[in-house]
């Protein structure tokens, strides 16, 4: 039986398909050389937009201590080929809503990849287990543009999460900052070659993330939206 809803569905699906951007076909050599899962062929670019001045304000990283096996186990609960006991906590920062964001990395068995997973914690209890994340050979192919981002679930009655968070390989950077609309600049947590931070959703569409080495030289600079 065909009814109005089914007709609308067909029409809508065709419409969405027609507006889908079709990126260039990724190079076959890229695909053939990828040994693990969730390797990403990003067309991400680096825009050379200078950030004038840097004031470390806002985000302050809590000391990222050793891995808590319980939290790592929760973060990797649905992952295959990951032993949470091998996870290392690479970030533990305060985020809005009296929560903390914990980020872990662990080697994927049977590959040269490592996998990042995150966990939102409130009062020592996980409140959101995204069990999403990303695996990559960060040591060799990772760059600052090859990270992950996420957001908590929208509050009841809302359609948008209040903020987006992100983690990216920081390379040699010893400090990093995110800047966005209105000239706001916030420092990121940098630990063991990773930079982690968050931005309010209303500003996430256009941010600049900059890394600095110990001499204050810019090591990377990325501009664009965070999140989908």
């Amino acid at each position, binding site marked *: 039986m065909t009814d109005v809803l089914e007709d609308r569905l067909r029409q809508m699906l065709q419409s*969405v398909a027609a507006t*889908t*951007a079709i990126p260039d*076909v*990724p190079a076959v050599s890229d695909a053939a050389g990828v040994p693990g899962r969730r390797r990403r062929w990003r*067309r991400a670019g680096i825009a050379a937009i200078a950030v004038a001045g840097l004031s470390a304000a806002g985000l302050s990283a809590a000391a990222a201590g050793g891995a808590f096996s319980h939290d790592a186990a929760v973060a990797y609960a649905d992952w295959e080929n990951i032993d949470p006991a091998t996870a290392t906590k690479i970030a533990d920062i305060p985020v809005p809503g009296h929560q903390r964001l914990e980020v872990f990395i662990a080697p994927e068995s049977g590959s040269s990849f490592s996998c990042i997973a995150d966990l939102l914690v409130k009062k020592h209890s996980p409140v959101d287990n995204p069990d999403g*994340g990303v695996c990559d050979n960060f040591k060799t192919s990772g760059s600052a543009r090859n990270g992950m981002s996420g957001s908590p679930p929208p509050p009841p009655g809302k359609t948008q999460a209040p903020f987006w968070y992100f983690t990216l390989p920081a390379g040699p950077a010893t400090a990093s900052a995110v800047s966005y609309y209105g000239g706001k600049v916030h420092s990121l947590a940098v630990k063991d070659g990773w930079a982690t931070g968050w931005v309010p959703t209303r500003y996430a569409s256009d941010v600049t993330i900059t890394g600095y080495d110990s001499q204050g030289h810019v090591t990377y600079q990325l501009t664009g939206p965070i999140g989908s």
Partner: protein
Amino acid sequence: VGVSANQPTSAEALVDGASDVDVVYRAQWAGLVRLGRLLTGSQQLGEEVAQDAFLGLLRATRPIESPSAYLRRSVVNLAINAGKRRSREVAYLRRQREEVAAPPEFDETWQALVALPPRQRAVLVLRYYEDLSEQEIANVLGCRPGTVKSLASRALDHLREELS
């Protein structure tokens, strides 16, 4: 020397002949991205599942009789898993913004569809976009036709409720 999308192939054969890979890839790429987007509700995630599906084809150790069917099934399953995991790793920091129109977020039918559970959404996409029969959808999802019927019924009921 290309292979048709339906010619049996294997990872070795594909890797040995880059042009063969190109043929399959170029033939399937756009359709896989569109299907991935419809299934995930996300342009970025749609691209990812299309890429991952092709990686699966490359890594296949056994001959694959129908690469096109294999790729479609992979995209569907990857999209369902992505939805289950709420995999929120997304491309970020893209220099190029999408040049096409933004997703029709104003379309209440689209909004309601992407809010469905992944398997229900997949059934509707396969039925109303791919025009697959219940049996064909069951083959893709690896379930019985009765399950497909049930999923479709629940999904449509939910949409009617949401859109009424």
